[in-house]
């Protein structure tokens, strides 16, 4: 049983408080929807959880059973896909997945990368540079890069951006599979993604 425990996290941009005393817990089998109007801090919250922003107060714990995952081991266990994160444009789709897979798994993950590309209908495009892919294809590839190491914790920020109906089916399958592996935090305002959630955490302006 994996858990993400967010305990009293606050954040301010300069003198403007954005998040105050955020507390929740999500566990394996759960997809926690993080909802709120634009500017309420959904993306910031996910960046704080991932450790991409310094947390001035509160803490975030990633737990496997009762054992807290040390910060140094987290990158092998955490996956994240966000709007403001990109892949390498000049590398091909397959090269991107192999790169992130090698960083996180240590060895060759060609078999898994090829299989994931097939699931996302990207296999015919695997040798194309990312810059030549459509925005929807790039989004699916970003999702694959976030799960290429089969993470125990997954953070998704507006994962359905630019996805068509078939892309949304792929996303649904991916979230369904992932929640058996560990908790998923999904920040969104897109009604098409609300159905993935098992619980909801609402942020206000």
């Amino acid at each position, binding site marked *: 049983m994996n858990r993400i425990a967010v305990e009293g996290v606050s954040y301010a941009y300069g003198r403007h408080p954005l998040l105050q005393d955020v507390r929740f817990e999500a566990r394996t089998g759960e997809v926690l929807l993080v909802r709120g109007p634009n500017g309420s801090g959904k993306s910031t919250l996910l*960046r704080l959880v*991932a*450790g*991409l922003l*310094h947390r001035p107060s509160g803490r975030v714990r990633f737990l*496997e059973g009762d054992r807290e995952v040390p910060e*140094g*081991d987290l*990158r*092998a*266990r*955490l996956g*994240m896909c*966000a709007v*403001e*994160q*990109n*892949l*390498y*444009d*000049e*590398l091909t789709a397959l*090269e991107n997945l192999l*790169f*992130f897979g*090698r*960083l*996180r*798994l*240590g060895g060759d993950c060609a078999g898994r990368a090829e299989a994931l590309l097939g699931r996302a209908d990207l296999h015919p495009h695997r040798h194309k540079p990312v810059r030549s892919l459509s925005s929807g294809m790039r989004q699916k590839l970003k999702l694959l*890069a976030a799960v290429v*190491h*089969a993470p*125990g914790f997954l953070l998704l920020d507006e994962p359905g951006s630019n996805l068509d109906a078939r892309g949304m089916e792929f996303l649904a399958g991916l979230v369904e599979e992932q929640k058996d592996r560990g908790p998923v935090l999904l920040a969104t305002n897109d009604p098409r993604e609300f159905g993935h959630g098992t619980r909801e955490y609402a942020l206000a302006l």
Partner: protein
Amino acid sequence: MARASTPWLSEAAAIFLKDLRSELRTKVAVNSIVLFAVITLALVSYTIGPYRIPPAEKPAILSALLMIILFFASMTGLSRVFVKEEEARTADTLRLAADPQAVFLGKLLLNLLTMAGVTAVVVPLFSILMEFHPMHICSFYGITALGMLGLTIASTLIAAIISKAGNKGALFPILAFPILLPLLLATADALSKAAAWPDLSFMGQALGILVSYSGITFFAGLILFEKVWRA
């Protein structure tokens, strides 16, 4: 599939190969460094040339000129390794996936390869165009290599510091100059001695300074980089 983190040397190799592949496809850093070096070299050789400098002052002046060319050439391209990650918004993706020390080492390896290539082109060309024939050729090239090693290590760390700043292009040389000045002075001094001195008695002190500088900046980089990278 949960597992312990991968060995960081293997990660550093992956990052180096990714950056090398990327650079071979775009050639942004290599083109800017080589073009700057060749243009500066042509300008120096055309305006000053080998005969306008008094022979007694030639070793000191040409050694300083060579370091100036290599310093400014490196300033045009070495910061790309981090600036590009921030501008292309790939830095966070990399932060989440890689060990900070592996990132530093991988980026450093690419910069070392780039500067080795630039030095291998510029130094012989400079020697030919300026008719600069050092007395101790092996020592001369060895000192140049050590000087470039120190310059590249320090520049890589500074590149990480400035990558999130607004005016990166101007900030890089401004921040780099005071940090690199002792190295540049020591290298230029040792080069002029390798070019003119009858013996190699200067080498002990020169090696001591250059190796110490590289060692200190390398280990400082490994220790400090995580703070810089996660800031």
